[in-house]
């Protein structure tokens, strides 16, 4: 497969972190070989039928040297930095320590860049790096493994409850940049944490590739919120791979606003009685494609998985949802519930949705429900019958459809931020934010 990237990254040789470390060099080389075998996925691949990523090879996207990142974008950082968080900032794929704030984290928490971790504690990195992410079947993950520029290393010790969320703020500063980050999040037994991933760009067209591997040990609980506000013509390919030990809890909340093509994948492996709760809201306008792919693997008995993804699609936008649930033969008493609801606001908008259940156990509860449609006439009439005019009623219902997902955010600062983003994308006649 022809790709422009091996040469581009070869020219950065020496700048990629961990080059002197043979283990990491070897890990990267194997991933590069895997990537070259497959390249970026094509629409001929069933899993990528609706998301055309050919732009990644058609356009020149260039990785940026760590020494060349523009730290002068502090003002933009301030705007997207959430209050009451520890913040790790990644500029064009590189950790920007000067803009970050992890001061005051307890000793039981390790938060540093992956570059720092590889130097300081390589064994801890290799214990996790590549252990759950799948280079083989997801084309962009091999790409990420081969050439990630940096990322976060976050490890939370046994029974530590992080009192504030950790925000991973990804900023791309200029057009045609390829930003490629890899994060490791490790929660030891009984630990609890909230992580917020924010993706923003100061330019329109660029590319983001980002992979997170998360390890949630026994009885630990991790929530990952994603606020995707990429530039209007950006390509965003991101995946999170989660290993859930017995009795662990994992929640994912993807709010997809930006990008011309944005793909978000969540993969999780559930061990006994583990629980995952996956959620997404995608608001498509113009020619956006917003794609959510999930794969939940019930490996052992009594695990619970819940999914709710909702899309509001306007103009010529396209929303994609694929929810795959695999229930292994020994995963008896699995309880799985998957829902995807789409609201089409324009005749030219499209929703492609595909639930996929593969059940090998015989004593399980697996439900799914999919809808694609317009606003409910009965609800419009119910509001009119209370004196609310038709336009306001429609605005309220459209907003309400989306707001159900916003209301799931338990972090007040983030809730307000996302609520504002959602409100700004809809006509507001008939909606009074002060009442919400």
């Amino acid at each position, binding site marked *: 497969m022809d790709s422009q990237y091996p040469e581009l990254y070869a020219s950065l040789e020496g700048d990629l972190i961990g080059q002197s470390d043979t283990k990491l060099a070897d890990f990267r080389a194997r991933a590069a070989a895997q990537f070259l075998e497959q390249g970026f996925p094509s629409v001929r691949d069933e899993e990528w039928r609706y998301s055309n990523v050919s732009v990644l090879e058609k356009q020149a996207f260039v990785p940026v040297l760590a020494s060349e990142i523009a730290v002068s974008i502090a003002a933009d950082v301030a705007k997207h930095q959430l209050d009451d968080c520890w913040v790790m900032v990644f500029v064009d794929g590189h950790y920007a320590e000067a803009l970050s704030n992890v001061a005051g984290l307890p000793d039981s928490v390790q938060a540093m860049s992956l570059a720092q971790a590889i130097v300081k504690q390589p064994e801890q990195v290799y214990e996790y790096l590549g252990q759950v992410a799948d280079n083989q079947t997801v084309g962009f993950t091999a790409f990420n493994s081969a050439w990630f520029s940096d990322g976060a290393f976050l490890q939370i010790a046994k029974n530590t409850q992080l009192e504030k969320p950790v925000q991973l703020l990804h900023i791309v500063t200029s057009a045609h940049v390829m930003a490629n980050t890899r994060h490791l999040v490790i929660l030891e037994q009984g630990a609890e944490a909230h992580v917020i991933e924010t993706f923003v760009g100061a330019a329109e067209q660029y590319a983001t590739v980002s992979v997170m591997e998360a390890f949630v040990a026994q009885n630990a609980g991790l929530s990952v919120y994603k606020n995707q506000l990429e530039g209007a013509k950006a390509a965003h390919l991101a995946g999170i791979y989660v290993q859930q030990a017995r009795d662990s809890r994992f929640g994912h909340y993807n709010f997809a606003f930006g990008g011309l093509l944005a793909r978000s994948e969540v993969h999780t492996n559930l061990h006994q009685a583990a629980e995952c709760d996956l959620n997404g809201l995608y608001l498509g306008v113009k020619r956006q494609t917003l794609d959510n792919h999930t794969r939940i693997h019930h490996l052992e008995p009594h695990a619970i998985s819940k999914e709710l993804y909702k899309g509001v699609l306007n103009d010529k936008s396209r929303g994609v949802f694929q929810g795959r649930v695999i229930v292994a033969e020994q995963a008896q008493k699995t309880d799985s519930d998957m829902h995807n609801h789409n609201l089409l606001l324009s005749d030219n908008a499209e929703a492609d949705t595909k639930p996929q259940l593969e059940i090998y156990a015989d004593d399980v509860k697996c439900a799914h429900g999919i809808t694609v449609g317009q606003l409910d006439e009965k609800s419009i009439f119910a509001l009119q*019958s209370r*004196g609310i005019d*038709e336009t306001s009623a429609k605005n309220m219902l459209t907003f309400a459809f989306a*707001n159900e997902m916003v209301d799931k955010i338990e972090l007040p600062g983030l809730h307000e931020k996302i609520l504002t983003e959602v409100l700004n994308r809809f006509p507001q006649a008939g909606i009074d934010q002060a009442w919400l």
Partner: protein
Amino acid sequence: MLSIKNLHVSVGDKPILKGVNLEIPAGEVHAIMGPNGAGKSTLSHVLSGKAGYTVTEGSVTYKGEDLLALEPEMRARKGVFLAFQYPVEIPGVSNIYLLKAALNAMRTYRGESEVDALDFLTLVKDKVKLLEMDEKFLYRAVNEGFSGGEKKRNEILQAAILEPSLCILDETDSGLDIDALKVVSKGVNALRDEARSFLMITHYQRLLDYIKPDVVHVLADGRIVKSGGPELALELEAKGYHWVEEQGA
């Protein structure tokens, strides 16, 4: 208050109402009873302006105005309230938001200022108490996950706050256990006064033990075939609808 004259209504090509005549003066409570398929719900829908019905003949005058010419929201603003037989669930809109949006829509129409936040809360909490509801219901999405009885109480809560002139109760008693029926009836009775009229549509005479009507009408096959006092309901209960249908024929 409400004057219905020779009202004919079709759904598609199918005539449902075939010449309904009904006069409801201010302050009166009228009950409409009748078998399934008689056109009871159609009547309530046509009065509140729901789409999908064609008026082929007749007129409806409300406070001297042609009601059928008004958009549903204008009917509501002028004081027509429909308590739905099947209240819809509206995920993402909290009960209190809906109440406030509705009340303000009406106040704005009347040229009044929007309701003061504190006054509103006092008013709502007062009515919530009247209907023996938990205040938590105010902050939950409209009807979402509510039991049948809770949904019906919620409709009456809306009426209590919006204070309509004409209150149409479409089978508000259906599916209620006796305790819930007593609470809903208490809410309705608290709303009764000389200026406010009620049109109660019901299957069951039991409701009329708790909300005493001034007049009972029997609707059968699209027409009002018999009208009388509260004793008519008891007679119907004893003899069955068949009896009036025969009389009407």
